[in-house]
């Protein structure tokens, strides 16, 4: 695992335009022009976003010299999402224990109240 790349993945995902570009690429490879079409944005801005995505390893360039279509690379996305799911599992499992403990505690407190 490469920590720098993981940081880059999260930074890349922090921008709504870049998430939208990834959404477009999830439907298939596309050229810079095609990617720019839905956004009210000049080509250099779109290129800049693409560079961030490429640095994060989320997007790769095709070899066809003239069109250079971009392709989505899903592996870093999976690493990031696995990590967040790990946190979710950590807390969910703790809260399972908490629920059990609360039920036990509540039943005991009610029983104690009845005794008094």
């Amino acid at each position, binding site marked *: 695992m490469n920590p720098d790349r993981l940081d880059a993945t*999260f930074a890349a995902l*922090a921008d709504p335009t870049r998430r939208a570009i990834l959404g477009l690429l999830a439907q298939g490879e596309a050229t810079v022009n095609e990617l720019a079409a839905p956004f009210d944005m000049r080509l250099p801005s779109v290129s800049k976003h693409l560079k961030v995505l490429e640095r994060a390893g989320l997007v790769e360039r095709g070899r066809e010299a003239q069109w250079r279509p971009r392709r989505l690379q899903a592996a870093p996305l999976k690493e990031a999402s696995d990590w967040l799911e*790990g*946190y979710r*599992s950590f*807390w969910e499992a703790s809260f399972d224990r908490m*629920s059990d403990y*609360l039920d036990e505690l509540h039943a005991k407190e009610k029983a104690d109240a009845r005794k008094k």
Partner: protein
Amino acid sequence: MPARNDSAAAADSHELTIERLLNVPRTLAFRVWTTPEHLVRWWAPRDPSGRDFTTPSCEIDFRPGGHYRICIRSPSGKNIWQVGTYREIVEPERLSFTFAWENDGVAGTLTLIEVSFDEQGAEKTLMRFRHSGLASAKVRDDHVLGWNTFADHLVAYLETGDFT
């Protein structure tokens, strides 16, 4: 267009929220979140084979600005420390505190935990849990916790659905 600070944006953009309906009054729910004797009974997950982590140490200074330091111990005996500072305390409605894993006595990246308790009738409480600032903590957490292996095991265990 104003300049963006990607790392700061990333820090804000990753959070997780969990809701739980608890079958107890919210005063009780609030108490198990804020008292060491209760916290040690649940504050840590189970491992993949269903063995509980234990919580051998829990020191909390429960007031805004007060610190806490909790040790959880994995079933294989690894101690993992968590530290943070209480921010907002509104008993019995909500509380918030910072959260970080500690490694070799040094706290890692701070994240934020917010919990609220809404009454749903006299005997039920809707707990809302939010953990934010997670992106900036990623690398550190992986390092401290061996996070990926831990998460894989936990997810595998949770998917068995066998929690008895």
